[in-house]
């Protein structure tokens, strides 16, 4: 089993650090990077505030990575999600997957980001340029799938 890493952090994310984990065993590495956008649903965004339930977020991330591993052949999988205040252009999330097979790397990477958005207890409040701010309406997690 490769050296997985699932982290919630208040520090800036360096996505390059994640890709460096790839080695000569796997032929493909895929890095997904989520970046704070300057707009959403027609409103101009000035910054974001992310809040998490950190202990649970890391646990759910580890579950998601384990599920991805059981479906596809992967080497190391690393997921980092930032919390706190983020400015436009900053990295909110980075997911690195290496694999002997590029198809598996794409599938596993996509699975992790989709499930992360559905299930990981993290919340985003958009701060708009007009001074207002609002928690985003997101996905309601279901008990099924978390083993209860």
């Amino acid at each position, binding site marked *: 089993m490769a050296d997985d890493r699932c982290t919630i952090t208040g520090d800036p994310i360096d996505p390059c650090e994640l890709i460096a984990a790839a080695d000569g065993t796997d032929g493909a590495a895929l890095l997904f990077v989520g970046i704070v956008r300057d707009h959403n649903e027609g409103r101009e965004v000035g910054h974001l505030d992310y809040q998490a339930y950190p202990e*649970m977020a890391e646990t759910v991330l580890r579950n998601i990575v384990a599920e991805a591993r059981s479906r596809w052949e992967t080497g190391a999988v690393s997921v980092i999600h930032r919390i706190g205040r983020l400015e436009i252009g900053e990295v909110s999330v980075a997911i690195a997957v290496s694999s002997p097979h590029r198809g598996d790397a794409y599938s596993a990477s996509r699975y992790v980001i989709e499930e*992360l958005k559905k299930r*990981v207890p993290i919340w985003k409040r958009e701060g708009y340029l007009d001074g207002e701010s609002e*928690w985003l309406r997101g*996905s*309601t997690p279901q*008990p099924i799938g*978390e083993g209860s």
Partner: protein
Amino acid sequence: MQIKALFFATYRDIAGADELEVQLPTGASVDDLVASLRSRGEGWQALPEKPAVAVNLTYSKLATALSEGDEVAFIPPVSGG
């Protein structure tokens, strides 16, 4: 028994706190905890009758029976990524 209730994002705004210690009768379920909180007053009606919850870091059904010291997190719709 004493239960620790955690609140995040919009639910934190409703609760006016990150966490609350709640006294419940032995054998109470998450449903009972929700009812107990919603009965606290006007503002608490904004907490859904059937919110998503995690008991001790795991998403759980509302029928889940609670034990002394359990940590119940109220999870509004998530929006990470």
